[in-house]
């Protein structure tokens, strides 16, 4: 889980994305109906943009091991993926959120039984400049900072300096997750600076002494000496937890979300092979390499 790896992975993902797109374009759906579930040769995975990197890496490695099976991966968002699963246009849906009750009702109506499999976890680390004396914050303090209720570090027990709030762009799934989980669905403050990429948040936090931002755990760990990762308390009275692979895995660190694969009913045949691969040691090694946290 270092920066070099990430870059390498990105390159691979781009190519695999291209491959995936061509596959979807060329494979079509004519042959899908001819095969029974057990001997499926094409697997389609659709859904979360957060997971596209991860799933295409899985798909690429899986196809290398099983040259006669083709896996095509497309993004579009978790909602799009779940809709596709309900409409029967995808075999597997990748989702960075749980299926909603409304969607579940719709599934039952359509006689589809969404089967939820947790395949990885994604921790979000809150980072500040290494010179910042603050070491931990509560969820409520974080919410106050990002919504603009606390504008100075002294409001949260720090020095009398302005807080500079950094956020991801609104198109990012992390933006929405952080908004839901930490801000309790309130709006971000208007003065928050929206950064186009995780790397710009790291860069800015490492040079701006009173900045605060949030990034994927993999990135935060890779930038270890440039930024300070804050420990987070769920509540004033609870101990602060530093995000790490262990604490995300165990659920102690709360700003984390599971990443799911959904499919219709129990996995069978090639679908089962693919999902088993994702959960295998090799598949989980890919999870780690792409900057997420393993579930096993």
């Amino acid at each position, binding site marked *: 889980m270092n920066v070099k790896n990430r870059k390498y992975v990105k390159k691979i993902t781009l190519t695999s994305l291209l491959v995936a797109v061509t596959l979807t374009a060329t494979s079509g759906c004519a042959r899908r109906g001819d095969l029974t579930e057990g001997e499926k040769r094409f697997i389609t995975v659709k859904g979360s943009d957060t997971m596209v990197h991860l799933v295409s890496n899985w798909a690429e490695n899986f196809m290398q091991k099983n040259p006669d099976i083709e896996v095509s991966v497309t993004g579009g968002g978790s909602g799009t993926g779940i809709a596709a699963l309900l409409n029967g246009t995808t075999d597997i849906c990748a989702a960075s959120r749980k299926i909603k009750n409304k969607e579940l009702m719709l599934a039952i109506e359509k006689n589809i039984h969404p089967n939820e499999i947790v395949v990885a976890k994604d921790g979000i680390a809150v980072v500040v400049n290494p010179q910042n004396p603050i070491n931990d914050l509560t969820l409520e303090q974080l919410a106050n900072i990002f919504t603009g209720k606390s504008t100075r570090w002294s409001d949260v027990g720090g020095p009398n300096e302005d807080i500079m709030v950094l956020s991801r*762009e609104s198109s990012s799934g992390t933006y929405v997750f952080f908004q839901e989980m930490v801000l309790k669905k309130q709006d971000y403050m208007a003065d928050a600076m929206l950064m*186009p990429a995780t790397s710009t948040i790291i860069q800015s936090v490492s040079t*701006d002494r009173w900045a605060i931002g949030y990034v994927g755990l993999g990135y935060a760990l890779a930038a270890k000496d440039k930024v300070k990762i804050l420990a987070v308390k769920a509540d004033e009275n609870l101990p602060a937890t530093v995000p790490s692979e262990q604490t995300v895995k165990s659920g102690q660190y709360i700003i984390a979300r599971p990443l799911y694969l959904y499919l219709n009913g129990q996995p069978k045949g090639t679908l089962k092979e693919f999902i088993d691969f994702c959960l295998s040691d090799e598949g989980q090694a890919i999870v780690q390499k792409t900057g997420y946290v393993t579930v096993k």
Partner: protein
Amino acid sequence: MKAAWKEKAVKLLLLSTASTTILIVISIFVFLGKEAGPFVFEPGLKELLSTRWVPVSFQKESFGILPLITGSLLVTLFATVLMVPFGIGASVYISELAKPLEREFLKPFIEILAGIPSVVIGFFGLVVLVPLIKACFRLSTGLTALAGAILLALMAIPTVISISEDAIRSVPTSYKEASLALGASKLQTIWKVTVPAALPGIIAAIMLGIGRVIGETMAVMMVTGNAAVITAWPFDSVRTMTATIAAEMGEVAFGSVHYRALFCVGSVLLLATFGLNIVAQKVLKKHRVK
């Protein structure tokens, strides 16, 4: 007979290539209008006049483009202020004062500057310029409108220099000779005769530079901080129209209100550059008659 047919064919071919451009421009207008149009009915143009741009929210989304317009204006204004003296000064020096050897040396470097991809300039800005601005002005962060303006000026200066240099060079030598013969010094000749004579070209160069500044995306997105606030203070963070479109278009749901709002932003941007071009041409024409 054969030759005449051939000539006709070539003429037709050339006509079609020439009109393709017009066709493309018109279709871009039509396309933008078509995608942005439904916003007028739902949720209505009034929404665009609000002062908050909050496209993703669990509470209430709001699509006020005023902060984006003021953001673009602020960055453009400061970039122009920086661009004009550097552009004109350099072009005067290169065309009038530089020795041939100096010119041989300066011109390629200016052209190289013009060819640097904006992402690279943006990265340079993020790593070098932003910390520098922060240190110079003792700010809490260097991610400011000023950083964007400086980078944009840097990117537009080569355009301004090469076009105004052409304009200055094309001033007839008889003008300069007449001025010198009347006893004016070299500097007087340059500022009182040559530059005024080349003014329409210089203005066109500046307009083109401004056009590049307004439309530039990547470099500004990386250094201005992108906070959608209305401000006239260059040390604040701003969000430009181009950065908004680039950052949000990728993941917006097709046909949603947010999608339409982004096309509205695009239309405003297009109208701005269109207006700028018209003004530039008017200025050019007016001076030519004189």
